């Protein structure tokens, strides 16, 4: 059961303790590190998507000024292990991703050689002087053609382009087929989830330093997962785990792209050992676009069996995931998350999803903000709109009709998950109310009368967060924390969740200060250095606050239980007589606080019998279940008929992530996530041409949202605690990206509905919309909405009175 706040900090919007160093230019990102004798690495990368490397001549590079060494695959591949894939996919065919290409390159950006020099300019000069002869080979870029018989092969040695096949279904498939046979209607749609480039503004980078005396290695790396890197790096470089220290210093954004162990981290570590000097590598943006993981890239055929009254019966999907040339750390797990969330927040009776992971001559795809869930939410929320269109029903009513009521939680889904808690109706009603829904529909009607293209879109989403219970994760899903009340009576909180911009130095201090009854100024949160935060499972999947925060609560509860005996001893009362408030144990008019208790615990002269000195506790929190945050987003868009440009004129977000530790930070997470969706829906697409050449190889060619692309937001929340952890919290790092993509897409499609356009794949660029306005057709030139249906009223006025809503922060 969720607990109410114990102090003044949790639940309060507070400015962040990490900010003073960041706003004064005093933070230390990996590129800011300078070690004595440090060398600089620069990579030579393939300009071809598939080629045989027939000759490499590095003589000129090796003799260039300042150059220490140049290495090619033959020099290092025997000494370094292959890139690990930790996803649980038993039938994965893995083509052994070595640190440098072994005679053949498989994607543009594939590392062929590395030059090491005394300064970074000399290293880049040397890389340019490495002369590589390539013999171009046929290229596989289309994942659908790649699985047809007789296709060219990405990795000829594998004999197939199919990396893995995976299926998920609700128990009895006969029931699924029966539901499809008995349905009044089967609604089908093919959808494409375009490839995206995560684009953290800080590119990747690392500094490796080997300590010969201790035979130990320190690797500073811009990563979300220092602990997983420490666990996996030994397999690549041969140094044992307990001789490796990983430090994630200030990390300039990740969004999943730094949730990996990359060749550069292993190779710099190897070279630091081999050359006896620290080695630094800082990724260029061009390298980042080509050689850091991409996201999404699924093609799905979706079929929904429905009744004429709008009841959703069953859903089937066949999905092709383009995973690029190699699996990275979690590549195969991304489409499986799509499968687990395929039924969204609806009461389907049965589902089936078949996934084929396909190798192509491109960079790997892997987890990018949302990692499989934005795909699931986009497809199901688009499908619900398309179903409503075909049934001539109100899309909002179809959602209401098929959602579980609050009393139906915990709710078992057709995908086999148990949703912890929810009030989908509450979030929907609140969002409609904030949007002034009926006025919005009037505005749409007026706009249409004036000949404008104006549309509204709604999405009710649910996501899977707090990844996750260890039984469902390939490498442990717990989180670790440690709390120490120091001699001074101040507290040091250490977390195994490594934030990279989310603000847990603040939110964890809020949690700890409240629970310890200390001023927040007396709490310091440490993270990111495996010599300090010894264990952890790091930050991804909206897990840090739920799992890392709960681990800290567990530590503090252990300390409080222990301190109670000490306080009773010092005050000469029984432990049960004591009350604890404001950081003081009190009984019978006497009290003692941290300033007295902590020195007593460390001096250890006047302590109870069998009292272990010190005030420190560590904990591993193992969740019983995931958490399932949810919400409703509403958008209105206006499309310029002349240019095809869609402009978001209204945006409402109501999100329920359970009780909020710091509402200001929650708002920041949601707004940041929505911006990623605005990018995905309106501009962003990673493009490879037919030769596998990366067209979007620079930020000049890849359209990220800018400040003027962002609409004003009206934001609210509902609060439905999770039963899965003591604070009832659910996680919010990816909510915006999951909720907003279908919302904006639905709004654009609503605007185009009167023209007969049924569906367009993302991104909905001005050109694509303009062409649809001209033709009334979808992307593939067919599937127009029948003329007679186009004037059917979609959306009806809704009762959004003061119905029973939980308290939010609107």
């Amino acid at each position, binding site marked *: 059961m969720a607990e109410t706040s114990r102090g003044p900090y949790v639940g309060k919007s507070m400015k962040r303790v990490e900010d003073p160093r960041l706003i*004064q*230019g005093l933070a230390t990102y990996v590129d800011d590190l300078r070690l004595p004798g440090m060398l600089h690495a620069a990579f030579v990368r393939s300009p071809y998507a598939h080629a045989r490397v027939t000759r490499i001549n590095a003589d000129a590079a090796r003799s260039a000024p300042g150059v220490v060494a140049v290495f090619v695959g033959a020099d290092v591949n025997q000494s370094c292990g292959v890139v690990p894939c930790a996803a649980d996919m038993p039938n994965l065919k893995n083509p052994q991703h070595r640190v440098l290409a072994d005679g053949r390159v498989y994607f543009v950006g594939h590392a062929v050689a590395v030059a090491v020099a005394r300064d970074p300019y000399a290293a880049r000069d040397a890389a340019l002087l490495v002369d590589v002869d390539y013999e171009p080979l046929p290229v596989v870029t289309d994942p659908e053609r790649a699985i047809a018989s007789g296709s060219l092969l990405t990795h000829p040695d594998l004999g197939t382009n199919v990396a893995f096949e995976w299926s998920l279904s609700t128990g009895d498939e006969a029931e699924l087929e029966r539901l499809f046979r008995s349905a009044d209607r089967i609604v089908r749609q093919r959808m494409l989830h375009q490839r995206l480039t995560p684009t953290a503004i800080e590119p990747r980078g690392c500094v490796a330093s080997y300590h010969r005396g201790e035979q130990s290695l320190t690797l500073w790396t811009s990563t979300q997962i220092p602990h997983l890197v420490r666990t996996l790096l030994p397999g690549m470089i041969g140094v044992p785990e307990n001789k490796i220290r990983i430090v994630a210093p200030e990390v300039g954004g990740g969004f999943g792209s730094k949730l990996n162990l990359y060749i550069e981290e292993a190779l710099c570590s190897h070279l630091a050992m081999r050359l006896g000097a620290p080695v630094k590598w800082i990724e260029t943006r061009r390298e980042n676009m080509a050689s850091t993981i991409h996201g999404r890239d699924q093609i799905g055929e979706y079929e929904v069996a429905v009744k004429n009254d709008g009841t959703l019966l069953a859903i089937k999907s066949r999905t092709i995931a383009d995973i690029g040339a190699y699996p990275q750390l979690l590549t195969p797990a991304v489409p499986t998350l799509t499968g687990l969330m395929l039924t969204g927040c609806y009461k389907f009776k049965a589902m089936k999803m078949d996934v084929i992971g396909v190798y192509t001559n491109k960079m790997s795809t892997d987890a990018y903000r949302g990692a499989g869930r934005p795909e699931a939410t986009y497809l199901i929320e688009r499908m619900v709109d398309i179903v409503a269109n075909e049934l001539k029903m109100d899309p909002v009513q179809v959602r209401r009709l098929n959602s579980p009521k609050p009393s139906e939680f915990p709710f078992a889904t057709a995908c086999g998950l148990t949703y912890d808690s929810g009030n989908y109706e509450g979030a929907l009603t609140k969002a409609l109310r904030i949007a002034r829904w009926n006025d919005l529909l009037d505005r749409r009607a007026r706009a249409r009368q004036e000949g404008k293209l104006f549309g509204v879109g709604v999405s009710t989403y649910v996501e899977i967060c707090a990844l996750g219970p260890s039984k469902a994760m390939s490498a442990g899903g717990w989180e670790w924390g440690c709390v120490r009340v120091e001699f001074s009576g101040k507290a040091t909180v250490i977390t195994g969740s490594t934030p990279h911009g989310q603000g847990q130095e603040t939110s964890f201090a809020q949690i700890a200060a409240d629970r310890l009854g200390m001023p927040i100024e007396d709490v310091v949160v440490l993270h990111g250095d495996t010599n300090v935060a010894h264990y952890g499972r790091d930050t991804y999947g909206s897990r840090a606050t739920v799992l890392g925060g709960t681990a800290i609560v567990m530590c503090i509860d252990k300390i409080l239980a222990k301190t109670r005996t000490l306080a009773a001893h010092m005050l000469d009362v029984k432990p049960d007589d004591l009350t604890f408030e404001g950081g003081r144990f009190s009984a019978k008019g006497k009290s003692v606080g941290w300033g007295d208790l902590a020195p007593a615990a460390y001096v250890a002269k006047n302590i109870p019998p069998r009292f272990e000195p010190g005030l420190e506790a560590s904990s591993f929190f193992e969740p019983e279940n995931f958490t399932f945050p949810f919400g409703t987003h509403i958008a209105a868009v206006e499309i310029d008929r002349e240019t095809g440009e869609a402009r978001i004129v209204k945006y409402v977000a109501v999100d329920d992530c359970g009780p909020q530790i710091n509402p200001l930070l929650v708002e920041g997470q949601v707004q940041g996530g929505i911006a990623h969706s605005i990018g995905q829906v309106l501009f962003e697409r990673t493009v490879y041409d037919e030769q596998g050449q990366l067209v979007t190889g620079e930020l000049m060619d890849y359209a990220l949202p800018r400040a003027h692309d962002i609409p004003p937001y009206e934001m609210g929340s509902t609060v439905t605690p999770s039963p899965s952890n003591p604070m009832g919290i659910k996680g919010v790092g990816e909510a915006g990206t999951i909720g907003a993509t279908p919302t904006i897409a639905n709004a654009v499609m609503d605007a185009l509905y009167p023209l007969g356009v049924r569906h367009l794949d993302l991104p909905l660029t001005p050109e694509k919309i303009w062409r649809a306005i001209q033709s009334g057709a979808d992307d593939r030139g067919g599937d127009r909405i029948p003329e007679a249906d186009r004037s059917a009223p979609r959306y009806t006025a809704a009762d959004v009175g003061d119905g029973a809503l939980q308290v939010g922060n609107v």
Partner: protein
Amino acid sequence: MTTTPVSIEVNGELQTHEVEARLLLVHFLRDYCDLTGTHVGCETSICGACTVQIGGKAVKSCTLFAVQADGESVVTVEGLARDGQLHAIQQAFWECHGLQCGFCTPGMMMTAVQLLADIAKPTREQIAHGLKGNLCRCTGYTHIIDAVERAAGAQ
């Protein structure tokens, strides 16, 4: 390697170093002046993480040679606070949660300072357009616009 002496007043202090003619201003600041608050995000003037001020104008230091700034006066993020007092823009970014990972923040603030010098009380739309040369992937910009608006009010 031929080098040439370059003298730039950085945050009020004269910095003279022998540098290669091809040395970028951002590397002069980071590697010769040890001012690592100015960041490199794209090397092509798109992201704006490297924004500094030269003679009061916001410029992208990743596509300017140090020799081009010879004799100029440069202000970096480290020069914003005075006598231990945060600049109004820093204070506003802090209060409005105008940053998350913080990597784009120095450049974003340097652009905002010039924006507020040009337009004392900008509208939100003017702020958004004024920041179009700076990318942020974390915040979604709304809190950044809030911060610039607040800093304008504080001036």
